[in-house]
């Protein structure tokens, strides 16, 4: 008992004040890209050529955040001339097309479905389905339950049964071997229900695009309401997306 008290005193309260107060991430973190549209075409082409995810459109000078793994190779290759990654982690989107960006994203809260806010604004229960996720998306979603983020204080919880859930949160590129289990889980959730695609894998297949063993795009199977980009999305990206879209 004394040991518990001593540890409690040493640990103190570690919960973040976000979203009431802003929080800044270390400067090496790569969040929403800042794009220079006036950049010379040669630099844009060099960035597009090095991109392992082929997510840079050199004609439109845009990046597809639904494919991007935020590896930062384009920033280094172009010496920051075309792309620089900011520390802005607020990157959720309600529309797939919005993720193909020239550096700006629509304000997520303004694009949320209003009836979802009414239904789920005070209580949102999600069933997480990992469909061939590599366990980094899963791990950084799980982290939302640790004292630093403390997701439950917002009335949002991950639950064990789809019957208790208001929607599903999907990670991974959806292997053929998980497709049916994913659809069964979706069917088991009572309507009205939400579908969240988390991480570039569930949005576009991520690193595994082109493999015959994956579906690759969650929206080809189910109506996706909310997209959370990243490889994996930073826990704060997920937190921001959930709060903006549902609260």
């Amino acid at each position: 008992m004394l040991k518990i008290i001593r540890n409690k005193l040493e640990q103190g309260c570690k919960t973040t004040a976000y979203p009431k107060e802003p929080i800044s991430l270390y400067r090496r973190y790569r969040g929403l890209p800042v794009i220079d549209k006036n950049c010379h075409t040669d630099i844009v082409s060099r960035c597009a050529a090095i991109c392992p995810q082929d997510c840079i459109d050199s004609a439109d000078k845009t990046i597809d955040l639904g494919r991007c793994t935020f590896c930062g190779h384009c920033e280094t290759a172009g010496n920051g001339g075309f792309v620089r990654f900011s520390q802005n982690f607020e990157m959720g989107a309600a529309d797939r097309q919005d993720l193909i960006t020239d550096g700006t994203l629509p304000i997520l809260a303004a694009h949320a479905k209003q009836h979802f806010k009414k239904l789920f604004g005070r209580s949102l229960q999600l069933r997480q389905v990992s469909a061939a996720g590599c366990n980094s998306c899963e791990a950084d979603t799980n982290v939302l339950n640790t004292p630093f983020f403390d997701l439950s204080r917002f009335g949002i919880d991950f639950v064990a049964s789809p019957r208790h859930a208001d929607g599903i949160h999907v990670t991974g590129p959806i292997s053929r071997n998980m497709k049916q289990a994913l659809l069964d889980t979706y069917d088991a959730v009572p309507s009205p229900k939400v579908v969240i695609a988390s991480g570039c894998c569930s949005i576009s297949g991520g690193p595994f695009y082109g493999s015959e063993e994956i579906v690759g795009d969650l929206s080809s199977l189910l109506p996706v309401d909310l997209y959370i980009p990243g490889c994996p999305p930073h826990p704060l990206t997920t937190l921001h997306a959930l709060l903006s879209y549902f609260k």
Partner: protein
Amino acid sequence: MDNLLEIQNGIAISRASVPQVPSDVFFKSLSEFVKNEGYIVQFFAYQEERSYRLLAVVRNTRLFVIGTEVGKTFRSLTGAVSEKFHLFEREIAEQFGLKPDGHPWLKMVRYHKNYTGEKDVFGNHYQDDIPGNYPYFTVEGESIHEVAVGPVHAGIIEPGHFRFQCAGEEVLHLEIQLGYQHRGIEKMLPDLPQKRLPIIGESIAGDTSIGHNLCLCQALEALADIPVDRGASIIRTIALELERIANHIGDLGALSGDVAFNPPAAYFGRIRGDFLNLLQVLCGNRFGKSLVRPGGVTQVIGEEQLRIIREKLTEITPEIEHVCDLLFTAHTVQARFEHTGTVTEAMAKDLGLVGFAGRACGIAYDARISFPTECYAELPGNSNHVTNGDVNSRATVRREEVMHSLKLIGLLLDKYEVFMDSLIAVQMRDHDLKPDAFVVTINEGWRGEISHCLLTDGKGKLQRYKIKDPSFHNWTGLAMSLRNQEISDFPLCNKSYNLSYCGFDL
């Protein structure tokens, strides 16, 4: 032994020098080797023009390779020699349609079409969803019942199917069927542009991004003769140790949660985040993705990062000690950890368990000591004292490894200082690979021995890419842990191993 060729970890050799022996000699050499405290690192098939070849990389205190040509069937060593061959032979059957004759439990590993178009060994046509056509091991009797769990589990974890045969609360047998995470990685890798390889290497198992990608990059470096700066090697070693600490700490917290002792669960959950954040300080990603690339690292440690890491370690080391003390001295925790999920040393040796799970059973093997890469040759090793093979042993070994890794990082940071101003970050670019070459790389990830094996063809194109996650050895260990155990102890046993689903399924 005479037929085996000794090789070095991470050194490419010409494929012509890999001994090709008649298949009876191959199987005889392998079984003799394995019977004498030998372990399998890699055992796989590949296609050579119109024939099929098997290749085995094995280890005792040294590393060896041997190969042979086989027809559409080959002799199974699983029943006759050792359980160590079990999954490797099933994998060969699934990937290439080659049948191991006399295999005692021949069923699919991951459920996918084979690469060659040969007749399916398991009689599946793959139009149906998983699990397809195969039986589960069943126990029969009036008082026996079966419990099926998964693929979708109750928490935020990866999918897999667990089938328990129980008499009342007691588990007589657990069969673990995976494959739900199969993404076709080995099949797709040889045909991809090089720029995509490290991105996939980092996502083979996201909790082992550094470990797997290190194996991948070291293999490419060996095949393309790319030197790596010593400073970069130090950063890679630090990153691998940070990954180890983060995962062990997270699992100690989860173990605490599984025995309903909440304070350490909350504290370790948060402390794990601090280590992920240190990886973010290193490279901008909490899992170390984008850090390691062929030739070095993409971001170097400057004065600022050095200071942040040092300060964090100074602050957090006593906290970890205190929370560990809280966890391991609580009687209620000891009562649940001790004598739960025991695997004997003899059993562990027959299964070929690796990593902390093996060390918790008394198998001292640590690839950092036996086949050191990067900076490990100059760093002190670790030894474990609680090796009873139960949950308590696995937890204690992890605790000891956390403290050991913290020390290693301190030593590495001291070594790094002289390189700080001269080290240059590398960028991803394509490299020409040696033709007709073979390389195997081994690293001790936090779960244990990770190994990648690459073969190039006459033009220097990748012909075969073989990946082995330590979970490939250890899942059977978890199944054996559950024998004669209460079914309610499953979460605790499972978390004490915390094996990778996607690393196994590939």
